[in-house]
Every structure is written in structure tokens, then in C-alpha cells.
């Protein structure tokens, strides 16, 4: 008998049907994968099973778990099941923990709620659990808070509280998507180990097919609320029956992109960074330690490294947002040394696109005003900006009429297009892309990468492409630098570095990438 048997599950939010008549089963000890692009209904399926749909959500159908129908159960029954029999891990490690409660208390909470007992006993148990998931208990310190931990550590805390009572089913909704590639691999290994040790079943939800290929036994692929493809993971990949699954696999490998030719790089230097140092007060080591790099006109340079390696600080220093403690930066021949401010004319040659498209726009202004903001960097902004706005919007594949809308009216991918339009506005020479596609799902990521490639050709742009995602670096850059602890540890043509990495840091990064096995392709 299966542990969970879902029959004809429907979820309706308002007038919108987000999950449409889906059925699947999960057996004890099995890792079941649920794939699909964002908005395909995978998270809603999980929330419906947990009884945690948004207020206007209505669910119907049947979901028999351990002999009990989750859909027909009362809220009271669901409360006794949640956190005890079925646990859930969410995507956002930075915000999924209560910032005001110590991590020990948060892990102890399900024990206290479901089993009772004293606060002290529950805390002792919580410390053991934290130890088990690899959050060093630091001599039993009970007063650590989420803000003291990195994203990966917080996700471990989430996992500890989810497995506190050895649930029969663990639902993991994009548990590693927001993390960098090495941390992602660690978290997935941890989950696999815990599932094996405790004989749990796990429902792993992600848009990343490679993650599912490596971790699941069975798989369902969702699109528009319906299950499109379903079966043993290996068969789903190798049978090539379903065209939608195939398109997802293709997107995940950026196969739609034209094969990269060595780009025609103009002679001379656009950006020359020489031995720059950036220090933060009270830090023992500099965040950026004597880093040198050069970008030629129309060149795309990649910068990779784990979180905290100093790559974003380096980008901020190049933009003049962090004061230099040493070295020089020369942009198109204009030199800036330590203690100098970057002149606006030099500043106007560079633009940046950030990871979080929503957070980097003011929600109260219309698009037309948002994307013309870089005009402030010019000494003589153009009189008629309508033409420029229309051109920029067309450039990134949006409608010129979109300038009258507000940012919340756009999807994640469209927002990132707007961020690119904003960067293009004043025709810069260099665009720095700081994890610009990391928050996007596979299909949209591939589209944005395609857009960036064509814009580069069209406008003769140089890119500094910062990412922890090596597949994106491979698709986008001519040369790559690998950064670790504030220093460049390896560099070379992208293809060479990825094919035969020399430095251990590079090797770790490459090995951490989840892959669809070669024989399955």
C-alpha cells in the first residue's frame, strides 16, 4: 500500500484553477520528484496536501496518507499531522525562520507542540538535531539567532525542525534553489542521507531537472496545473516520449543557444583593474585582496566563486560603490585610485543588473520613470526620452506601451528584462550582471541568456558576468575568473577552465553541479 495516494486533486484559487485533476502515489522510503516551471502548480500541490493553501484556495479530490484522507480532514486533524507525520521545507532560507526566536527554540518547537515535555528537554533534543544536520552546536549555545547563520546553515536549521519528529513524508519545495552550487550539493546530500537513515519518503519539488535526475526514483512533470509526464525517473528522461519534458531538458542545458564561437574581441582594453584591495572595518582579511582583471571591448568575462568569496564586493568596487583601499581601476583610460571618487562621466559607462528584479525597482513609480533613472548619470540627459524608452523596451522584447505600467504587473522574467532595459538606457560600454539570472527558472533563464547574447552583438557591449551557476557562465562568457577568499585563484578561456580545472576550488564548483547522466541523453 502506498504511503500517499493522490487521486484527482484539484486546487482553485479564486476563478483560477492552479492544480487540475492530478493523481500520483508515493511509497515509503521513496524520493518522488515534482518538476515544472514556475507557476506550473507544483508548490500549490504541496500546500494543498499540507492544508496550507492561501485564504482563497479551495481543494478537492482525495489524498490518502497512511489511511487518512488529507483533503477531507479537519483543520484540527491537519494540525496534528503537520510537523509530526508530514513536514515541509521551503525555498527561502533567509526568510523562512523567525528572526526573533533562537534557532534552538525553533527546532524544539514541533517537539513541544506535538509531544509536550519540558522546554529544556526539547532544547536538548534540538541541539542533537542541529548537530545531526551539521549546524555545529557551539558548545550547546542556546542563544543563536537566524541572522548569525549563512543561507546554507539556515536551510539546515529548516531541515532539522522538519525531521525533528521523524515524519513519514518530507515535502521539500525547491530546498536548494536559492543557494549557491556547492551549498546546494551539500543540502541535497544531507536530505538524501536523512531520508535513507530515517526511512522517510520525500517529495522533492524543483524546476531543476538535473537535481531530480540525480535524486529521485520517480518523477512527475507539471505544466499549467496538469501532470504532463509521469513515471520512473530514468524512463522519463530516456524515453523522450513527451515533448514538454524534452523542452525542459533542452532548456536546462541551454541547447537552444547557438554553439559558442570564440567571440570577435576588439583590440585594446575597456576596463583594467590593477591590484585593487577592498577592506571592511573590523574584518581580519580584505574582502577583495589585490585583484587584477581586464575586460576588452565586446568581451564577456565570467566571475565565479562560492557565496562570500568577494565577487559582489569586487563588482561594487568597480562601480565605485565601495571605496578602494589600494590599487587602481581604469575605465576607458580614466584612472581611479584609492581615495578618489569615480567621476560621473566614467560612472555612466557602466551599468549593473542585480539578482532580485523586484527588489531593485521602486514599486510606486511607473516603468517609464524607473528605466530612465540612469539618465541622472548623464550631464545632459536627452530632452525627449520617449523615443529612448520605446527603443530600450523593444530591445529587451517588451512593448513600448509597457512604460505606463507598474512593476508588480510584470512576471519575474519580464522584470529582469526591465532591469536590462534600464541598464541599456544610457548606452553603457560595460554591464555588470550580478547573479542576474540566478533567481529565474530554467526556461526563463534560457530566454534571458539568449536576450543578453543578442544585445551584446547588437550594441557591442562588454559583460562582467557574476554567477555561481557554471552552466550559465559556460553559455555566456569568453573567459572566466575563479575567486576564493578575496583572491583570483584561477583564470582562462571558459571552455578550458571548465574542461580541465586546475585549482581545487574550481574542481569543487564543477563537481557540485547537478547533472543529467550522459547515458540518459
Amino acid at each position, binding site marked *: 500500500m502506498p504511503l500517499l495516494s493522490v487521486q484527482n486533486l484539484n486546487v482553485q484559487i479564486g476563478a483560477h484553477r492552479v492544480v487540475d485533476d492530478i493523481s500520483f502515489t508515493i511509497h515509503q522510503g521513496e524520493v518522488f520528484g515534482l518538476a515544472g516551471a514556475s507557476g506550473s502548480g507544483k508548490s500549490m500541490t504541496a500546500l494543498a496536501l499540507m492544508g496550507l493553501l492561501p485564504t482563497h484556495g479551495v481543494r478537492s479530490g482525495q489524498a490518502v496518507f497512511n489511511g487518512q484522507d488529507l483533503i477531507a480532514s479537519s483543520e484540527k486533524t491537519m494540525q496534528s*499531522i*503537520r510537523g509530526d507525520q508530514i513536514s515541509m521545507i521551503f525555498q527561502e532560507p533567509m526568510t*523562512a525562520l523567525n528572526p526573533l*526566536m533562537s534557532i534552538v527554540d525553533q527546532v524544539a518547537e514541533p517537539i513541544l507542540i*506535538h509531544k509536550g515535555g519540558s522546554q529544556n528537554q526539547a532544547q536538548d533534543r534540538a541541539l542533537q538535531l542541529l548537530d545531526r544536520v551539521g549546524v555545529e552546536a557551539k558548545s550547546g549555545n542556546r542563544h543563536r539567532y537566524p541572522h548569525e547563520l549563512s543561507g546554507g546553515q539556515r536551510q539546515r536549521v529548516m531541515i532539522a525542525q522538519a525531521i525533528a519528529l521523524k515524519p513519514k513524508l518530507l515535502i521539500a519545495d525547491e530546498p536548494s534553489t536559492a543557494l549557491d552550487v556547492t551549498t546546494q550539493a551539500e543540502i541535497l546530500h544531507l536530505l538524501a542521507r536523512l531520508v535513507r537513515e530515517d526511512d522517510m519518503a520525500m517529495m522533492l519539488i524543483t524546476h531543476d531537472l538535473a537535481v531530480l535526475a540525480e535524486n529521485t526514483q520517480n518523477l512527475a512533470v507539471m505544466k499549467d496545473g496538469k501532470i504532463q509526464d509521469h513515471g520512473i525517473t530514468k524512463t522519463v528522461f530516456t524515453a523522450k516520449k513527451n515533448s514538454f519534458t524534452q523542452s525542459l531538458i533542452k532548456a536546462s542545458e541551454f541547447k537552444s543557444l547557438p554553439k559558442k564561437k570564440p567571440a570577435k574581441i576588439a583590440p585594446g582594453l575597456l576596463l583594467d583593474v590593477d591590484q585593487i584591495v577592498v577592506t571592511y572595518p*573590523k574584518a581580519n582579511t580584505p574582502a577583495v585582496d589585490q585583484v587584477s582583471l581586464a575586460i576588452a571591448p565586446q568581451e564577456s568575462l565570467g566571475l565565479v566563486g562560492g557565496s562570500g568569496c568577494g565577487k559582489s564586493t569586487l563588482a561594487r568596487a568597480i562601480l565605485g560603490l565601495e571605496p578602494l583601499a589600494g590599487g587602481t581601476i581604469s575605465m576607458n583610460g580614466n584612472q581611479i585610485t584609492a581615495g578618489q571618487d569615480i567621476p560621473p562621466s566614467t560612472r555612466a559607462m557602466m551599468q549593473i543588473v542585480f539578482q532580485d528584479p523586484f527588489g531593485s525597482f521602486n514599486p510606486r513609480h511607473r516603468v517609464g520613470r524607473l528605466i530612465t533613472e540612469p539618465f541622472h548619470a548623464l550631464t545632459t540627459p536627452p530632452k525627449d526620452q520617449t523615443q529612448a524608452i520605446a527603443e530600450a523596451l523593444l530591445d529587451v522584447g517588451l512593448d513600448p506601451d509597457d512604460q505606463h505600467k507598474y512593476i508588480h504587473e510584470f512576471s519575474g522574467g519580464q522584470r529582469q528584462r526591465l532591469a536590462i532595459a534600464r541598464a541599456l538606457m544610457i548606452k553603457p560600454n560595460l554591464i555588470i550582471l550580478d547573479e542576474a539570472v540566478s533567481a529565474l527558472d530554467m526556461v526563463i533563464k534560457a530566454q534571458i541568456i539568449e536576450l543578453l547574447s543578442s544585445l551584446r552583438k547588437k550594441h557591442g557591449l562588454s559583460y562582467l558576468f557574476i554567477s555561481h551557476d557554471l552552466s550559465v557562465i559556460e553559455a555566456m562568457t569568453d573567459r572566466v575568473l575563479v575567486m576564493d577568499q578575496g583572491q583570483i585563484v584561477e583564470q582562462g578561456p571558459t571552455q578550458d577552465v571548465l574542461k580541465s580545472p586546475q585549482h581545487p576550488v574550481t574542481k569543487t564548483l564543477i563537481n557540485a553541479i547537478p547533472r543529467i547522466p550522459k547515458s540518459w541523453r
Partner: protein
Amino acid sequence: MLKFIINRMMTLAISLIVASLVIFAAIELIPGDPAAFMLGINAAPDTVAALRQELGLDGHPVARYLRWVAGMMTGDFGQSYTYQVPVVDLVMARLGISLPLTLMALVLTILIALPVGMMAASKRNKAADWGIMGVTQLGIAIPNFWFAMILVLVFAIQLQWFSAGGFPGWDNGLAAGLKALVLPAVALALPQASILARVMRSAMIDVLSQDYIRTARAKGLSEKQVLLRHGLRNAMIPVVTILGLQFSFLIAGAIIIENVFFLPGLGRLVFQAITQRDLIVVESVVMLLVFSVIIVTFLVDIAYAWIDPRLRQSRLNLGAFR
């Protein structure tokens, strides 16, 4: 945490010094002679001169300022002109009524606002929420002296549960004293509780949409446990800010309410002192009020740190926010 408190104490000391300078300067800068001003236009010149000396208005301003500050530190606020008693005695007696009144109003504000605001947030867009929003809207709109009169009309004149005004004195027992303060405290608290309930509601609605609330539900907490264990503390941050600001409104509001209920409190004292041009009393009471507001601001800052571990350690962890 200790570092944080010491840091805040320094700010507190500086605020007090600046406030005392401003108050002193204000009295100094009033055009004309305070003594002549206090005595009115028909005063004889030698009376004015005598008062000048009594007030300590002769001498260099710096020396006078230092004398005034030194006096306050040793508990000597000077002599009231109209009452001919030390200001300290006068203020202390009045404080015995105003302080309990303000505290009672503050406690009432909290006891009404927090549950009501939480209730409205958890029943968002339902009948209970609309009802609460309507009532709090009225509570903000109604002037509290008018509400005070309604209270007197209903509870003192019709029902005769409370007396319509006056204060029996603490000598007649704690219960009698407190009873006399109930209606004034309710009148004082109502508008503030209405404001705070709305702040609590919106803070809680904001908190309830956070990811960690979903995590709490996924752990199997009931709605009530979610609200109390995870919602309340997070929602308290904006609530404490507003509560700190409301304290000065409660003090200012007490001036009107004490007059409506004939309570011999600080509000009445300052009101009478102003009409009788007793500047020494005005100066001292204003300084006392400023002092209490600064102390409350200090307590609010401490409360932030107590609620939020990120503030407690902010000096150590700046790097994490970069």
C-alpha cells in the same frame, strides 16, 4: 547588550542637556523682564527688583543656568511665586496623581489595543475586523474631553458607579484613589488605544504574510499558537515605536482630562501656573515632562533590543547586512 545600554545612556544625557538649554533659553529670550511680566503692568519697581532677586535673575546667564541645573540635581527647583512653597513639594504632590493616571491609561491602552488589534488581523476582512476598524475610527475621531463628559454622564450621573470628579487623596485608601482615576484613565486611553489597535492590526497583517509564519503553520501550530508564539513578538516592533510616541500624548492629554475631572494633578498645576504667570513652576514642570519623555524614549530603545536580537548584536554583525 551592556554596550548598547551605555551607548543609549550617553544619548539620553545629551538629550537632557540640550533640552535644559532650550528651556532655559526660552525663558531668557522672552522679551521683557520675567519678573515684571509675572507681576503684571501695575507693579511697583521695587517689588519687581525684589522678585528679580528672588528668582535669581540677576547675574550672568551662564552662572544662572549652572545654578538652575545644579539646583535641579540636588532637588531644589526654586520657590513657586503664587504658592510660596518649594516647587518640588508642589510637583511631588501633583505627581502622586498624574503619574498613576498616566500609567493606568498606558496599561489600559496596551490591554485594549493588543488583543483587539490581533483579533482584527486574524479575522481580516471579516465582520469582526470591520467592526473593530469602525469602532477604532470613532475612537480616534472623538475628542477625549467630550468622551470624558459622556463617561461622566453615563457612569457618574446615570449609573452613579463613580464620582463625577475630584480626588479623595491617597490617605483614604488605595481603592478609593484608584476608583477616582478610572474614568479619567479610560477617557485618556480611548483615542490612544484606538490608534495603537490599528497599528497592531497592520503590523500583524504584515507579519502574518511572512514566510516564517508559513513555516510555523507547517510545524503544526494552531492559529492561536502562530499568533502568540511567532506573530506577537514580531508585530511588537512597530507597536513599541508608536507606544513610545503615545506616552507624550498621554501626558499632554492629561492636562485637559485633569481639568475635566477636577483632578489636582500636574496638568492642572501647569495650567494654573501659566494663567498665573508662575514661570518657575512652568519651567520646572516642563523640564520634568521633557525628562520623562526622554526616559520613555530610552526605555523604548531598550525594548527594541530586548525584542530583536539583531539590534542587540548589530554592532558586532554589521558585516552580515552588507
